[in-house]
Every structure is written in C-alpha cells, then in structure tokens.
C-alpha cells in the first residue's frame, strides 16, 4: 500500500540529503563575507549602483554604506533568486508520482535562521559607525540658519546678518565655503518641509517648533541643487534651492556684503499670498 520508497534507518548525511544546495550555501556564505570587504576599500573601483558618490565627507560615508548594502543585497537576493529559479526549472512536473512529503529539515532551518541573524548584526554595526560619522556636529567655522516656508527657503548667516531668500522657482542659493565645517540649523515657519540635496546624500526635515542641527564638509567647489521632499501643499514640487561652494576667501567677501533691503519672512509670505506662481 505504501507507494513511497523505504528510507534507510540511519539519517542520511546533510551533504547527501541536500547535495548541490549545501555546497552552494557554503560557498555563498564566504562570498558574502568577501563582498562586504569593499566597504574598507576606497570604493573607487566598485560601481556606484546609481547613487551619488557624495560631495561632502558625510555624503561619502553614506555612499560607502550604500555600496556595502547594495552588494550584500545583490549577493543575498541573487542567491535566493537562484534558488527560486532552480526550483522552478528543476522540479517541473514530470510524472503523476507523488513526491516525498518531507516537511522539515532541522539543520537547514537552524542555518537559515542563524546565518541571516549574523549577517544582519554585522550590517547593523556598519550602520551605527556610518550614522555616527554622518550625524556628528562638531562646532564649525561657518553657521547658516535655514528656514523653510510655504513655498521657499531663507538662508540667514548670523555672523554678518546676511539673508538670502526666494520662493519656488527663484531657487535661492546658499553660498558656503568648501573645505570648511559648516553648521546648519534648520527649521520651518509653517508646515514640515524636507531639506534635500541629492549630491550630498542627505536630507532632513524642517519642522515648526524644533530646530535640527547638522554639518556639511563640502569637498569641492560647485553648485549643488536642492529641493523640498516632504509634501507641504500646493507648490511643493516647485520649492527649489541650491548650494554653491566657493573658496573660503570668496565666501568671506560674499558673506560680508549685506545689502540694506533684506526681506523678512513675513513680507515674503504676504507677496506669495497676493499671487502665487503657476496658478
């Protein structure tokens, strides 16, 4: 009556039981460990996988973490995908015979619980290291206070009182020196906005009633575009700005050039209410 073949009394060895899959698992595990090593390399020969390399030191650190995670994801995801495709092709229905009704394999189950746990813990260590680098806020040479409002940005330099502001497509430009530590404090005048500079690999919320502090150490001169990322109302998609990094000397000259008719936030909002853009 029993149509399934008899099994030998002694449990078969794992390598017999799972054969090629076991070898694949072992070799893939070492591959994962090797693959995480590039985090320590300069990262220059590893592809960017679509992200920016980072124009700030903080952005560079975030980028390296991205590369590490991407490689880990590629390896692990690729491995699992291979297993799925292997199963789909190798175990297509060939006959009406009912296959062996196996329900569990303790060793493999323990393995695929413990190994991901270890991988995830290692990844967490790298996350904490990078996070501490990115969010460190030692006192810098330059301070900028950023205020977001519906629908533009204001940049205020407390050292000299210089104010730069603009709404929507006027895209105000925050001028800062490259190579120096810049302390940014960020808040909002009304709703929550997102201060996002893609090439810095960084964004942070501008919120009413609370100030966020973060640092930039920009590596090279250049103009870096920015935009609001957190939905803030009708003209959310037009809330543009940019950051221009110049030599420290140029910056000092610019910062001290304070015109006498700096607008305030209140005046700007009144002008917007009178007739907004793109209506």
């Amino acid at each position, binding site marked *: 009556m029993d149509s399934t073949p008899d099994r030998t009394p002694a449990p078969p060895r794992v390598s017999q039981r799972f054969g090629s899959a076991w070898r694949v698992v072992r070799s893939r595990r070492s591959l994962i460990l090797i693959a995480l090593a590039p985090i320590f390399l300069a990262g220059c020969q590893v592809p960017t996988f679509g992200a920016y390399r980072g124009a700030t030191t903080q952005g560079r650190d975030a980028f390296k*973490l991205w590369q590490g995670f991407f490689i880990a994801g590629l390896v692990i995801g690729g491995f*699992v995908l291979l297993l799925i495709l292997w*199963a789909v092709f190798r175990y297509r229905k060939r006959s009406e015979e009912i*296959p062996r009704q196996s329900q*569990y*394999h303790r060793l493999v189950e323990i393995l695929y619980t413990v190994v991901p*746990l270890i991988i995830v813990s290692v990844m967490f260590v790298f996350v904490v290291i990078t996070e501490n680098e990115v969010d460190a806020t030692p006192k810098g040479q330059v301070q900028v206070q950023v205020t977001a409002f519906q629908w533009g940005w204001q940049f205020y330099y407390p050292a000299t009182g210089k104010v730069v502001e603009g709404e929507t497509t006027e895209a105000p430009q925050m001028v800062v020196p490259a190579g120096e530590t810049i302390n940014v404090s960020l808040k909002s005048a009304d709703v929550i906005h997102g201060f996002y500079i893609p090439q810095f*690999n960084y964004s942070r919320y501008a919120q009413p*009633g609370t100030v966020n502090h973060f640092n930039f150490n920009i590596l090279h001169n250049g103009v870096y575009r920015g935009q609001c990322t957190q939905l803030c109302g009708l003209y959310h998609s037009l809330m543009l700005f940019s950051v221009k990094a110049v030599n420290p000397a140029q910056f000092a000259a610019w910062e001290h050039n304070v015109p006498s008719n700096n607008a305030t936030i209140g005046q700007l909002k009144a002008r917007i209410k009178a007739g907004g853009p793109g209506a």
Partner: protein
Amino acid sequence: MTDVIIPVDTVVGVAPPLVTEEHVSHAHEEHGPSGILKWLTSTDHKVIGMSYMITSLALFYVAGIMALVLRLQLTSPNASVVSFQQYNELFTMHGSLMLYLFAGPFAFGGLANYIVPLQVGAPDMAFPRLNALSYWLYLTGSITMMLGFVVAGGAASFGWVAYAPLSSATNSPGAGGDIWIMALILTGFSAIFTGVNLVGTIFYLRAPGMTMFRMPIFTWNMLVTGILILIAFPVLTSALIMLFCDRHFGTHIFSVQGGGSPILWQNLFWFFGHPEVYILALPYFGIVTEVLPVFSKKPVFGYKGMVFATMAIAALSTGVWAHHMFTTGLVLLPFFSLLSLLIAVPTGIKFFNWIGTMWHGQLSFTTPMLFSIGFLCAFLMGGVTGVMLAAPPIDFFTHDTYFVVAHFHQVLFGTAVFAGFAGLYYWYPKMFGRLLSDKLGKWHFWLMFIGFWVTFMPQYEVGLKGMPRRVASYPPNLGWQIYNQISTVGAFIIAISFAILLWNLWISWRRPVLAGDNPWDAHTLEWFTTSPPPHHNYTHLPPIRSERPTWDYNHPEAPSIVGHGEGKRLEKAKLS
C-alpha cells in the same frame, strides 16, 4: 436565528466515504429573504466575504485609473494633464483607496471572511451580525471617502499619511479633509470588528481535532493579522479623532502654537502605519503558503518555523514605526534601525520555507502558481530595498524620493496584487463552482509581471538621482523624463493586464467550466466540501489529524514525512 448541528461522521482512517446520518437542522431551509433584501440582511460569511471582494476590487480599479492619470502627468516635466491641486488630491486618494479600501479589506474582509471559517471547519464566523456590520461600515466608509471629490475644495490633498501641520484647518481647509477623516473612522471600526471576529472564530470555532498547530498557515496568518488589527487600528482611530478636534474644536494637540507637537501625529500614525502594512502583507503571505504546497504536491516546509516567523514579523513590526521618521532628527535611530533590520530574518525564514516547499516537488504552473512565483520575485527585491532603507544614513538620501515609492510599490504590489490574484484564481472555483480560464490567466500574469518591472525599476533609479515623491511636476533639464516615460509605459501594460482579468471574469461566467469540489487536489479542509459550499459550510467532515485533512483523506498512501527518521513515529500518530 438558527442552531447548527454538526453531523455524525462515521469515516475513520482509510474507509471509503459514507455518511450514515445527517442531523442537519431543517430550520435553515426556510424561505428567507431573496434578492436585494437577502443581500441587505445576510449574515452568512460567504455572502459578506463576496461583497467585500467585489467592492474592494471595484475600488482597486478606480484607484488604478487614478494612478494612470498620475503617470500621465509625470510623463513630461511640466505637464498640465491635471492642475497641482488635482494632482495632490489624486495621489492622496490613490494611496488612501489602495491601502485603506482595497488591500486590507480584500484580504481580511473578503478572502479571510470567506475562507477562514471553512478552513477551521466552522459553520460561520463567531459573530455573524458583527460581521455584517463590518461590511456596511466598510461600504459607507468607502462612499464617504469618494464623496470627497464632490465637496467644495475637493478631496483631501495631504497624502494618505496626513502629516500635521499640513492637515490642520489652516493649511488644509475645506470639507475634503474632514470627509477623509470620517471615512477612515468608519473603515477603522470595520477593520476592528473584523479583527475581533477573526480572533474569536479561530480561537473558538475550530472543528474537533483541529488543534492550533493543525490549522492551515493562511488561518495562522489571519490570526496574527487579527491581533495586529486590534493593536494598530485603535491608535489610528484615536489619532484621527484628535486631528478632527484640532481642525474643528480648537484643540492644539498637533500644532506648535498651542503647545502641541506635530511629531506626535507622526508617532501615532506610524505606530498604526507600520503594523498596517504588515496587516496588508501577512494575509497575502498566507495565500502563497496555501498555493505553493498544492501545486508542488508537497506539504508546507517548516510549518512551525512559518508560524513562529509570522509571529516574529508581527511582533517586530509593531516596534519599528519610527523608521518612517528617521529624517525628523527626533527619534532614537539605533533602536528602530536594529529592529527594522531584524525583520529581514523571519521574512528570510519564510522565503526559505517557500522554496523548501517547492524543492523536490512536482510543480505544475497553473495561474495561481505563476502569480505566487511572481510574488516571490517581486517581494524578494522589495524586501532587499527595504533592508537598505532600514539604515538611517541610506534613508537620509532616499526618504521621500521615488526610491521609496518603488520600494513600497514592489512589496505592496507583490503581495496585494500578485499574491492577491493568486488567491483569487485559486479559490474562485471553490466560491463559484467553476474555473477561470487558465489561458487568459497566463496572459494576465505575464503582462502584469512584465508591466510591473517596467513601471517600477526606473523609479528606483530616478529616485536615486534625486526626484522627490508627491511632485506634480519636475525640472526639465535633469534627465528624469526618460525614466518617467518608461514607467508610464509600464503602467499602461499593467492596465491592459487588468482588462484581461475583467474579460476572464466575464467569459468564465458566461461560458462556465464546472470545477467540482477539489479541482486542484488541494490539501486543506475547505476543499472537502462542495463548490460552492452549502449553507453552514459542511454536511460532513473528515477526521482531522494533520494540517492537511483533505490530502490525508484523498491520499492515505502519502502521509507527511516529518523529517529524517521521525516518519514512523508520527505516521502512527496521524492515522487515527
């Protein structure tokens, strides 16, 4: 009110099926209401489940059309397909319809309502009238949500997450926001009552011999989902009431001016919001765990591992809410990052168990099986990108960009759509007694699968390039247009596949191919009864000695071999 009597079943072991007596009460053969009155008064979980499924699928199509309009707008940088205000309303409603009114209700109100009592051998849900009330609250909640479009000022436009202070009366005046809040209060209570019903039914109405660890994995997932609903939805309902009070009764819970805290809204909302996405995912995981064994002709691999993995996912998911708030600068980053990374472990266990189910099986690629494999592929990549987002330094530059949009569409589409359609094609024969065309189903699957990748892969890239989400327009000179255009083409391919589904449903109704009780040679209890099941579900029941009572009954020669060398001991226990 009718009493239900379980009939005596003399089937034991491998004897041929012979029911000697049926003590089925004749009271429920009375001529009850018919037609529309029958629909209005029915408390039968099958009727309610069917109503839920039809309503939610209709809303799915409506939300899908909204998505097509959004994609048309984004095909060129400064398009004017719709105005900025209309665009903001459309993505708010697209998200709200999909998440609140389709994915959840289809799973726990529709499929689970229909299938769970059948799978545990119960005549109905534990609280039938409460079940009916759930449906009416859901229907009226959905109507309320859609009413937003007809009020002055338009529908809500603050996103499906309604962050304060944007959702305050000053920043979002008009009845649209209030309608949105009210709709969610109705559907929230609907979900809570369904959660109560699910837990009650699973705890109390199982058939004799169906211990907790003999329940099908779909039922286990619905139990865990039910508990998650009870944890999460009351928090949402409370937060919505608080928001309404802020908008109309002069409170300052979420506004800085009165001493409140905008971030409190985010904490409350995401304490609901993250378990919510697992409420949306777990039922669909359960569907896949039903389909894969049947079409591999093997039992679920690692049953207990699956159960504990599901519990671990649900437990962890309640502790990760602030990973949606990493960029606020106001949350404890390592705590939430670690827990978010940890969720990958039980999810990985489930993946390996699914693969283990297929391993050494005899796979037949029917439409439900294809959709389940499609789910595995889609969710795999969506899960990997989720792990990336769990790292705050990476989240800082991907948050609120199209990278996140691509990630959550992959996971949600992978679950609610791929696995959801797997469930639809799998259980359709049981519900209607006829088969859906497998040929059209394959067309549906392949077009949807291809369209899915074409739509969402470019979105990852354009998000990494810096395109934020919820934007009605974008600057023309940044090279983003090509990605948006490809994505729109993909969206229309998906739309065509949905048209094929409608055609399949229509043609299978007009020219029915009868299905029989168990066309798939499936394993679980619901396949033992007729298609469709009779009133109160079962006229006779097989002995329940494992998680596959129907398989054991039909294939006594192939019982489950539990592991290495343990087969004989457990086989002896299984044959009653």
